[in-house]
C-alpha cells in the first residue's frame, strides 16, 4: 500500500511537470498557431475571390481579413446530400462587389483516406448563381500521385465556372455522368478522368463537397432561412 501511494505521488509529480512545460509551450505558440491558421484561410479565400479572367481580387484584402476575423471560431455542421454524408464549416462569408453577391463556403466529403476539405466561391449576378472557383484546403489523407493530385491547379480549375443548372442537377465527375453529356458543366459534369487517371474517389469527394455547400447555400442562405 505504501509503495502504491509512493509510486502514485511520483507519477503525479512527473505528470504535473509535463503539464507545466506543455502549458508554457501552448501559451508561447498560441498566437503563432492562430496566425498560421488565419493566413492559410486568408490565402485560400483570396484565391477563390480572384477573378480568373482578369486575375484581380474581386474584394479587397482588408475586407476579406475583417470578415474572417469577425467569423471567429469554425463550427462543424453534419450534412447529407443524396445519401453522401459530409460536413459544412460555418460561418459562411458574404461579400458584395460591383453588383455581385459573393458567397464563400467551406465543405468536406469523404475521399479515399479521409475527408477532402474544399472552399468554394458562389457568385450571384443578374439573378443567376454560379460556382466561381474552388480551392482544396486539405487532401492530406489522399494517395500521393493519385488522389492527392487534386491539390494541383489544373484539376481544381476544372471545377470552376459551373452554372446554376449544373449545380441544380448536382455536380458529378465524368465517370459518374451516366446519361448526362460528359464535359458539360451545364449539366454539372466535370471532366477529371483525363488528368486524374486512376483516382476517381478524390474528385468525387470534391463534387460531393460542392453539392453539400450548394444545398446549404440554397436552403439556408438564399432560401431565406439563415
Amino acid at each position, binding site marked *: 500500500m505504501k*509503495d502504491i501511494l*509512493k*509510486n502514485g505521488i*511520483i*507519477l503525479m509529480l*512527473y*505528470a504535473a511537470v*509535463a503539464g507545466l*512545460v*506543455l502549458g508554457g*509551450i*501552448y501559451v508561447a*505558440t498560441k498566437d*503563432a*498557431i492562430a*496566425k*498560421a*491558421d488565419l*493566413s*492559410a484561410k486568408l490565402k485560400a479565400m483570396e484565391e477563390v475571390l480572384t477573378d480568373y479572367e482578369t486575375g484581380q481580387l474581386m474584394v479587397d484584402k482588408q475586407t476579406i481579413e475583417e470578415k474572417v476575423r469577425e467569423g471567429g471560431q469554425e463550427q462543424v455542421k453534419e450534412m447529407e446530400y443524396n445519401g453522401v454524408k459530409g460536413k459544412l464549416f460555418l460561418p459562411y462569408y458574404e461579400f458584395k462587389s460591383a453588383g455581385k453577391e459573393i458567397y464563400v463556403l467551406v465543405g468536406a466529403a469523404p475521399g479515399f483516406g479521409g475527408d477532402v476539405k474544399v472552399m468554394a466561391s458562389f457568385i450571384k449576378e443578374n439573378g443567376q448563381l454560379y460556382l466561381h472557383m474552388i480551392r482544396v484546403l*486539405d487532401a*492530406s*489523407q489522399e*494517395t*500521393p*500521385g*493519385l488522389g492527392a493530385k487534386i491539390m494541383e491547379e489544373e484539376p481544381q480549375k476544372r471545377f470552376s465556372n459551373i452554372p446554376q443548372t449544373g449545380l441544380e442537377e448536382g455536380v458529378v465527375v465524368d465517370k459518374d455522368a451516366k446519361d448526362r453529356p460528359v464535359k458539360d458543366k451545364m449539366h454539372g459534369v466535370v471532366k477529371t478522368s483525363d488528368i486524374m487517371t*486512376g483516382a476517381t474517389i478524390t474528385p468525387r469527394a470534391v463534387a460531393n463537397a460542392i453539392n453539400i455547400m450548394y444545398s446549404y447555400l440554397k436552403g439556408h442562405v438564399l432560401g431565406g432561412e439563415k
Partner: protein
Amino acid sequence: MADKNESMAWYTFKKGITSENPTYVQALGMCPTLAVTTAAINGLGMGLAVIIVLTLSNIIVSLIRKAVPKDIRIPIFITVIATFVTMIDLLMHAYTYDLWKTLGIFIPLIVVNCIILGRAEAFASKNPVHYALLDGLGMGVGFTLSLFLLGSIREILGNGTWMGIHLWNFKMFMFILPPGAFITLGFLAAFFNYIKIKREEAEKKRQQQAKAQAQKA
C-alpha cells in the same frame, strides 16, 4: 582510454544507422514507415520529427533514470515522450504549417512509435546522458535515412518525381499504394540483411584466420 571512449561514442552513434538500423534490421516503427513514405519529403519530415523526439526523450530518460521507480518506469517514459511529441506538434503547427498538414495524424502517433519507447527502455534508462544522446541521434538518423530511401524509391517509381521534381512520365502506381510499400520495404530489408550477413561472415573468417596464425606462431 580516451580512444576507447571515442570509439565507444562513435559506435553508439553509428550502430543506429548501420548494424542496428531500426527499420531494416530491427523492424521497429513499421506503421509510420509504411504509411508516410509515399513521397521522399514525407519520410524526411517524419524522420526529422522523430530525431528531435528521440534525442530529447533519451536525454531526459537518462537524466531521470535514478529517480524513476522500476514499477512505474513505462508510464513515466511515455509521459516524457508524449510531452516532447505534443511540443513538436504545437511548434510545427505554429512555424511549419505545410509540413504539419502533410504529416497530419502521424505526428501524434510518434508517441507510440516503438523505437522511441524501445530506446528509452533498452538504452537511455541504463546509460549516461552523452551516450543516450548519441544513441538517440544515431537511431533517429538511421530511421530518417531509412524513411527517406524508402520514400524516394516509392516516389520515383510510383510517381515519376523525386522531392517534387519531375523526372519522367513512367509511373507504376502500385509503388505509392500499400502493396508497393511492403514490396519495397521487403527488398530493402533483404538487401541490408544480406550486407549484414556478409559482413558477419567476413568478420568470422578474419577471426578464424587470426586464430590460425596465432596457433602457428
